[in-house]
């Protein structure tokens, strides 16, 4: 019962490459030096080209010697004599569209006929591909040069091969749609006809290939459909959950609902006797939430047999070390702390007290946002096959590279004993940066000595996440007599596992808004004890901080009697980089441009009927500048309708316009869904929500009209999985105020009585 898709790679080349490169010379992905690596001419002729940025020539030379006779799929481009072109996409596809965007970049520089290109998921081999993970909206930014050179080098070799065959100068030739054309005579050769000759040529160095100017792009910036769309709409096997291997068993894993609990006893004999159950056993785990926590594994002959047995499972947990976290307690404690100064001062800049003393107006407010879960629609799963001291893994993961390390640590084996296949993921949102499910599957497969597919239930997924941490901000700020923002103070109440530093993504990073834009600023912090794991959730930190900061800024504009647009532009000030020399930092000129664009496109300032209002917000994160305007109405019973959201963004040049617009639309809906009704509460260390009934992901009916506008600047491109999300919540809250006079300071809005 082997499935064709996803492909199972034998992948013999990766071991060689790793083996011939020592630790210091496998640093791919850095863009200070660029080395092109021709891996091998494939059997039967053709061109396979891999590119390693920053890799030294010694590793390259030895690799190509060893691999001269191998078929090695671990490269970006494969052109066969029959004309077929395969482009390998190196990064995990989690819905961000990278499996289409990355090959588009290669195809642009290659001048390949996109309609004839086939895209395949690359095997994991960081020695060849460099970074192979999806997080921080970094995939495009970190691969832009690498992928462009990969395409351009191959194009140059094909062009040289044609010129040599014709006996003309390469400068007389050009390329278009997978064809080399001799401009003088109009002679043409298809890439396939040149593949064999091109494979015999030396790979050009970085200085001898010319990259296209943006105005020469034919493919980049257009709307291209996802390369897997046809397979998706016809139900082909693509996702992690679809993986099947011969002789596979099905596993579930039950962990203590309170993090840190271990198994005291369980009715294992009873479970083993159930229909279809092959084994049930306790794994002690290694105590790491990112790897393997204690639990009970049930291995069965089908998913349902395993699920049904799990319902019969009775575990008595030893909770002496387990979390006792309570969200209601946290709210009570934070509310009590709100009026007190923070325990530690993190930033003290200028003279805040003086600014308050001389203020025309001061505003104080207390903002709260909850823990939330990632809840990708495909619950966590992983297929693993341990045999003879080695393991093969098929996983939907955002971080295949670090997954290998974690499995190695969990099992106590070397990383070269692990082969990992990355499969399409049914959503990520940061959840699959963690590979706990991968470690669990690996340990279960080793225990039973058979291939297993571990399948989490939705309830498992909601109970064992690395949640976006909740938080509390007690704010005070001032505007002076000229109506200018003059001082800002924040007592931030967050959570900590060790009493020293905030829990993962529960911190306020250096240089957070509005510190770099304001003379008088103070940030203090108090930590509440917390044990339940937290982690990056789409636009980590920013997803919550934007709500607080950009809502409060609107409160100040109101207090000053100023138009929000004008006030916000004034806060941004003169066009400049906030970290001079760093083109991934906030540029106030780019910020002002997207703010103005969003305002203009949304009809900012134009009158609206009573009960309707517009709200504006800007946020910068992940090198992306985004402003959004929401138009909402609120009726007397707090029924909220979001009619329209206008998005304006600057992330540099757009790779795939359709994909980019899709990410923005998705970010708006995700932002709305989360702010309206999503909240993970805990009591006694246990997550109280268990499925979508209590964690109501937004349905289609509440979808607003969404307009997306990009400023395609010439700054380096960056990713779009995250930066369009943060401004949504404050834009909607500011619009609610404009529509109703109600200031929403607590998320989700269901807590304030709003409904859709």
């Amino acid at each position, binding site marked *: 019962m082997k499935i064709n898709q996803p492909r199972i790679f034998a992948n013999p080349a990766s071991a060689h490459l790793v083996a011939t490169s020592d630790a210091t010379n496998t640093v791919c992905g850095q863009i200070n030096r660029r080395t092109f690596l021709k891996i091998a001419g494939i059997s039967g002729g053709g061109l396979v080209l891999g590119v390693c940025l920053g890799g030294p020539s010694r590793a390259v030379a030895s690799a190509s010697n060893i691999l001269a006779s191998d078929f090695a799929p671990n490269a970006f481009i494969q052109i066969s004599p029959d004309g077929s072109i395969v482009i390998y996409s190196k990064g995990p596809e989690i819905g961000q569209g990278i499996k289409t965007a990355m090959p588009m970049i290669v195809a642009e520089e290659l001048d390949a006929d996109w309609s004839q290109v086939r895209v395949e998921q690359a095997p994991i081999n960081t020695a060849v591909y460099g970074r192979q993970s999806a997080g921080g909206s970094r995939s495009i930014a970190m691969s832009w040069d690498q992928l462009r050179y990969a395409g351009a080098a191959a194009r140059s070799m094909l062009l040289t091969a044609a010129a040599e065959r014709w006996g003309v100068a390469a400068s007389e030739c050009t390329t278009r749609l997978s064809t080399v054309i001799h401009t003088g005579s109009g002679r043409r050769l298809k890439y396939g006809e040149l593949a064999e000759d091109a494979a015999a040529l030396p790979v050009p160095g970085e200085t001898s290939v010319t990259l296209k100017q943006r105005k020469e792009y034919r493919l980049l910036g257009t709307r291209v459909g996802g390369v897997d769309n046809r397979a998706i*709409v016809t139900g082909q096997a693509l996702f992690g*959950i679809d993986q099947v291997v011969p002789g596979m068993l099905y596993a579930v894993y039950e962990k203590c609902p309170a993090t840190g609990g271990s198994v005291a006893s369980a009715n294992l004999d009873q479970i083993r006797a159930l229909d279809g159950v092959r084994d049930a056993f306790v794994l002690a785990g290694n105590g790491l939430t990112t790897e393997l926590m204690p639990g009970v594994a049930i291995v069965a002959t089908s998913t349902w047999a395993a699920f049904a047995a799990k319902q019969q499972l009775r575990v008595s947990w030893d909770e002496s070390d387990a979390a006792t976290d309570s969200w209601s307690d946290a709210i009570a404690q934070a509310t009590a702390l709100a009026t007190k100064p923070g325990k530690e001062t993190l930033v003290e800049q200028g003279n805040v007290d003086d600014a308050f003393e001389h203020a025309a107006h001061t505003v104080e407010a207390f903002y709260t946002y909850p823990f939330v879960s990632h809840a*990708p629609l495909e619950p966590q799963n992983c297929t693993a096959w341990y045999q003879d001291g080695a393991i093969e893994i098929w996983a939907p993961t955002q971080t295949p590279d670090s997954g290998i390390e974690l499995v190695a640590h969990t099992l106590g084996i070397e990383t070269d004993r692990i082969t990992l296949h990355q499969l399409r993921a049914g959503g990520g949102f940061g959840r699959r940066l963690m590979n706990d499910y991968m470690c669990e599957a690996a340990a279960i497969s080793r225990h039973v000595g058979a291939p297993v597919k571990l399948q989490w239930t939705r309830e498992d997924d909601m109970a064992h996440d690395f949640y976006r941490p909740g938080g509390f901000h007690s704010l005070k700020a001032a505007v002076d007599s000229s109506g200018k923002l003059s001082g800002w103070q924040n007592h931030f109440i967050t959570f900590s596992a060790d009493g020293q530093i905030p829990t993962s993504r529960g911190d306020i990073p250096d240089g957070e808004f509005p510190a770099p834009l304001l003379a008088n600023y103070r940030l203090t912090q108090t930590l509440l004890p917390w044990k339940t794991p937290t982690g990056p959730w789409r636009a980590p930190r920013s997803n919550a901080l934007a709500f607080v900061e950009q809502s409060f800024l609107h409160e100040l504009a109101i207090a000053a009697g100023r138009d929000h647009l004008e006030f916000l532009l004034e806060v941004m000030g003169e066009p400049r980089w906030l970290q001079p020399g760093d083109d991934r930092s906030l540029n106030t000129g780019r910020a002002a441009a997207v703010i103005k664009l969003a305002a203009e496109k949304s009809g900012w300032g134009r009158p609206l009927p009573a009960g309707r209002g517009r709200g504006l917000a800007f946020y910068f994160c992940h090198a992306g500048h985004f402003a959004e305007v929401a138009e909402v109405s609120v009726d007397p019973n707090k029924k909220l309708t979001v009619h329209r959201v206008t998005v304006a963004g600057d992330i540099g040049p757009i790779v795939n316009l359709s994909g980019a617009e899709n990410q923005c639309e998705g970010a708006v809906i995700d932002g709305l869904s989360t702010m309206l009704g999503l909240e993970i509460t805990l009591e006694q260390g246990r997550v109280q929500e268990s499925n979508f009934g209590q964690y109501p992901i937004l349905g289609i009916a509440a979808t607003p009209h969404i307009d997306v506008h990009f400023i395609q600047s010439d700054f380096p491109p960056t990713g779009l999985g995250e930066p369009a999300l943060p401004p949504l919540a404050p834009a909607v809250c500011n619009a609610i105020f404009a529509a109703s006079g109600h200031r929403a300071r607590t998320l989700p809005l269901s807590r304030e009585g709003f409904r859709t």
Partner: protein
Amino acid sequence: MLNLTVNGIAHSIDVDASTPLLWVLRDDLGLVGTKFGCGKSFCGACTVHLNGKPVRSCSVPARSGVGQAITTIEGLASKNGTLHPLQEAWIEHDVPQCGYCQAGQIMSAAALLERNPVPSDADIDDAMQDNLCRCGTYVRIRKAIHSAAAKIANKGDQV
């Protein structure tokens, strides 16, 4: 033995008849296009047709499919491989992000168009509200349904 007819093909399956249809489709028949999202009728990822009516296959026992025509996403295109107008529209509007919910979305939409060939936005809201898309592709889902409906109507006119 459980006898099921899926996408026009009769199967005799050695499985407990109380197993949810979803898992029989996925694990026993290898029809993995139908997805598991919640297991409790909340998300719609597992939507298939029983005699043309949309059901949540995670929450119906396989035995209730006996004697019925079961259609899954794999069987929505015609036998000669021509895609259903919804599948075409989904590609044309580049609807998917992660793609995981889309089989269920398309199956719900197909059942909608069967009973209501020209749905309004409100009809779409009604029929599709419980098909959750965690990635938020609703704008495009709506467009694709309207565009498929228009295509079907045009074809009908030509006949």
